[in-house]
């Protein structure tokens, strides 16, 4: 490693495994620093291709997204190659892959000639895999930051992912412009704390790196300290180590050999390990109490002996940094940093809403269901209640359509209607269309809707109209004679009356069943009785003008609405007006149409063609 600067104001990165927030934070940082080009050149994301919209200040920009070409796992190599080819200027690879795939994708990235630095965020990458990355990086002059890290930052130039947290914090720590301090730590969480501390007592950070808490980090504390030593703008270094491992000793060696010419303030945390009786594993994988050599006390002493400024406790670290910095100022080593005012970053709508600063109107309103929270609910009834209480489809319809729990006799009636209307053989127009479509090789949804689209005034749509006319006539107190003759004058056939086959002496079984059910369970059947009076009158005119199934359902549904006592008059008018009853037919018949589709597919029926013989060709 060694050599100097890793990043500049022109550094661009490829971001692997898209995460909205870290990328947006990188772009916000860029804007804050007055960068001209965004620091993310491209995104590599499984399963998505095209462009990702993100903000660059007030403007939206589109960043190219490169995807795997297929679902074959090893194809991530192909997409990394493609992305590197498309963005030859991007030399940093920011890897947000999971611990399972982080090593393989990092290796693939490192093998690209354009990539110089790989930052691995995932925690839990196997040691042996990281060792392969370290070996490859060493022999090919690449730099690995992480695994198990938040990344790093060069103030005023380039930032990796979530490093340094919120924009407020970045402004607070003056990370939008370079200071004079090089900082390196193991802990990613503590790096942000130290950016703050350092900003409080010096002119701020020049560059900060968190190497990650693993046993074998891709690059070490001393790697970065030696690199900082070669960067002229860095005037002093701050190092935050941790118990476990021997990495700090390579820094001790470098100090002893005089390889570091700038002051180093260091602290190794973990002095508390001796309070534990047995061996302990702290939060980081590498932070494990072991031999005396690996203890915080021994490392602090060794660093002190080698010439680093080592305070007596973490609490005194800030003072030690301050003192060291002030000495450099006195010695004239530090030129004052010109202060700049960063441009304001517009706040995201979501966070502004969260903090109560702004409000925004919604664009959709919904009153029947809610999928937020522990479990979805229908009209306020949680899914578990629906299952535990043994609700049926009728109850679910009652919740989602009528927004209330209707009594069981009502929901059972709804279920009976659905069962009766589910199918009416292959010859009716809806089923016929579905069959033709299915045989044309179309998918389920296409076949289903081609049947559904047939439903209308002549096919299946009579229930609604029947309900409207029966209700209107009954409510206005018209006698069957007045009603039927009135319709006739207007030239309208009475919907719900009449059948192609059924006669007065051969009633529709379905109508009889519905009437029997209603007589047994409904508190009142006044609309049905009215419909029967109408039928009596129409039968006197022609033998086939019987009450059909549409008419029966329509009149009985009016009785259900009026007799259950659960609907106001206004609500009943609305239900009839909107056309709820047609919904009942659409829902029911979908069952049959889906059945016809499956039937045709199962029978492997070929394309349907209507025979010539069955067409009258005429002029």
């Amino acid at each position: 490693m060694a050599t100097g600067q890793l990043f500049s104001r022109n550094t661009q990165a490829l971001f692997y495994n898209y995460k909205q927030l870290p990328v947006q934070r990188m772009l916000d940082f860029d804007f804050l620093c007055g960068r001209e080009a965004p620091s993310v050149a491209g995104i590599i994301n499984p399963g998505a291709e095209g462009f990702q919209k993100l903000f660059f200040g007030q403007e939206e920009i589109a960043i190219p997204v490169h995807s795997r070409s297929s679902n074959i796992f090893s194809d991530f190599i192909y997409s990394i190659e493609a992305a590197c080819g498309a963005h030859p200027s991007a030399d940093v690879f920011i890897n947000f892959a999971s611990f399972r795939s982080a090593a393989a994708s990092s290796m693939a990235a490192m093998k690209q000639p354009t990539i110089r630095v790989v930052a691995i965020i995932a925690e839990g990458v196997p040691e042996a895999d990281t060792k392969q990355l370290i070996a490859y990086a060493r022999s090919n002059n690449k730099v690995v930051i992480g695994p198990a890290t938040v990344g790093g930052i060069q103030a005023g130039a380039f930032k990796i992912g979530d490093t340094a947290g919120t924009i407020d914090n970045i402004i607070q720590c003056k990370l939008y412009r370079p200071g004079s301090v090089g900082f390196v730590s193991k802990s990613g969480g503590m790096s942000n704390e130290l950016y703050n501390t350092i900003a409080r007592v010096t002119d701020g950070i020049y560059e900060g790196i968190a190497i990650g808490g693993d046993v074998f980090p891709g690059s070490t504390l001393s790697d970065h300290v030696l690199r900082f030593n070669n960067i002229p703008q860095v005037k002093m270094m701050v190092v935050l180590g941790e118990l476990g491992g021997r990495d700090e000793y390579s820094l001790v060696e470098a100090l002893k050999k005089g390889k570091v010419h700038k002051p180093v303030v260091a602290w190794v945390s973990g002095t508390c390990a001796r309070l534990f009786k047995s061996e302990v594993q702290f939060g980081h994988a590498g932070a494990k109490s072991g031999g005396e050599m690996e203890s915080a006390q021994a490392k602090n002493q060794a660093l002190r002996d080698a010439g680093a400024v080592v305070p007596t406790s973490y609490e005194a670290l800030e003072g030690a940094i301050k003192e060291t910095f002030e000495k450099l100022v006195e010695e004239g080593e530090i030129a004052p940093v010109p202060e700049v005012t960063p441009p304001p970053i517009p706040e995201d709508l979501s966070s502004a809403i969260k903090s109560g600063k702004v409000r925004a109107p919604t664009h959709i309103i919904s009153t029947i269901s809610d999928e937020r929270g522990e479990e979805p609910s229908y009209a306020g009834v949680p899914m578990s209640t629906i299952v535990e209480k043994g609700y049926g489809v009728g109850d679910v319809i009652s919740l989602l359509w009528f927004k209330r729990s209707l009594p069981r006799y009502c929901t059972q009636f709804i279920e009976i209607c659905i069962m009766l209307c589910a199918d009416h053989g292959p010859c009716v127009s809806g089923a016929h269309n579905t069959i033709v479509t299915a045989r044309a090789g179309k998918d389920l949804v296409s076949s289903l809707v081609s049947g559904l689209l047939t439903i209308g005034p002549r096919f299946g749509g009579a229930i609604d109209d029947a309900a409207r006319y029966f209700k209107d006539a009954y409510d206005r107190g018209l006698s069957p004679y007045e009603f039927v003759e009135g319709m006739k004058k207007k030239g309208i056939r009475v919907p719900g009356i009449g059948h192609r086959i059924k006669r007065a002496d051969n009633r529709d079984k379905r109508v009889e069943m519905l009437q029997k059910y209603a007589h047994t369970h409904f508190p009142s059947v006044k609309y049905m009785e009215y419909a029967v009076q109408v039928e009596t009158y129409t039968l006197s005119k022609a033998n086939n003008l019987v009450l059909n199934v549409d008419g029966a359902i329509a009149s009985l549904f009016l009785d259900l609405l009026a007799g259950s006592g659960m609907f106001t008059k206004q609500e009943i008018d609305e239900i009839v007006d909107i056309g709820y009853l047609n919904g009942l037919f659409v829902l029911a018949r979908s069952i049959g149409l889906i059945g016809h589709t499956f039937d045709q597919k199962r029978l492997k029926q070929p394309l349907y063609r209507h025979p010539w013989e069955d067409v009258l060709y005429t002029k």
Partner: protein
Amino acid sequence: MARKKIREHDSKRLLKEHLKRIAGIQLEIRSAQVTESTDFAELANKEPWLSTTKLVVKPDMLFGKRGKSGLVALNLDLAQVSQFVKERLGKEVEMGGCKAPITTFIIEPFVPHHQEYYLSMVSERLGSTISFSECGGIEIEENWDKVKTIFLPTEKSMTSQTCAPLIATLPLEVRGKIEEFIKGVFAVFQDLDFSFLEMNPFTLVNGEPYPLDMRGELDDTAAFKNFKKWGNIEFPLPFGRVLSPTESFIHGLDEKTSSSLKFTVLNPKGRIWTMVAGGGASVIYADTVGDLGYASELGNYAEYSGAPNEDEVLQYARVVIDCATSDPDGRKRALLIGGGIANFTDVAATFNGIIRALREKESNLKASRMHIYVRRGGPNYQTGLAKMRTLGVELGVPLEVYGPEATMTGICKQAIDCIMTAA
């Protein structure tokens, strides 16, 4: 997380199974595990060799120097082994300053031998170190100058040439066999993601390598690759680390979530308790209380990180508060709810769980005269800190709140000053 020691029984099981698979070497070793739940008759049924051979028995507890401590018994029959175990199972021993009961033994055939070889493999940053000696056994440390070591860089593979310096001085008739063995063991070491492996000693039985004593350490982050190869592997706690019921509750919680929840009681009568966000920061809070001279008052080490959800934080905080407030003695106590400046964790969201727990435990907090100190920064910290301040007023419990403008560990000093002032 990370490097975990495994029992000798498991080390040998893995070696035997995979040396055969990878290198075609059949080891004639056998071992049986004995714990509190073992029925000797049943065990003898399952492992008939136990009744037909003379046996060795020793604790399998992740500590060494068992021979030197008189915990190894040789040349016994099964009845004598059973007696040996009965006398020692569950009895406390002291090893390296840790006192704990022995819970697990390993039984193996007794193998009389003269030659004792030493072999170890250690995974290091740039490669692996392999050490070998013809003078192994319990005197290995006295004979350390006879140990030969090679360093094999990650990018190099193990060949006869790289192995040569280890075995150069061996008599010709065993050299080939041992070279083949070392190469085979190294292949297993790499294939199974061992980070450490040691045989001290192994010997030759009928000219074939035979490990007598073995230690192993696996990289548990590689578990997702080794599920099948490792089989039903156990990662015991380090010797001497006996979990209290509260600690094992948190340990169980930790294993169920993707976030990290750690809790260790250091001194149940301590008066300074911590509940800190972040792996790095949590260590520093414990350090600071110690570095300021009040290690003896530190009740616990506690860390939560990786965005645990509200319910997990609630359960976690309940346990910490219960321990911190137990057995009030009339003297003041302090609870540090600390943390650095988070990079991406929503502070207000994690505080919700803590606040619920504090509210539930109001009377305990008052009875133990708890003073609460909060310090935290990061996304949405203003909301989180404001909620804490409101809670302090609402409960009437002394509660001080600081943000990123204050130093991270300043509240340690405040807590110490608080509990040390009279009244």
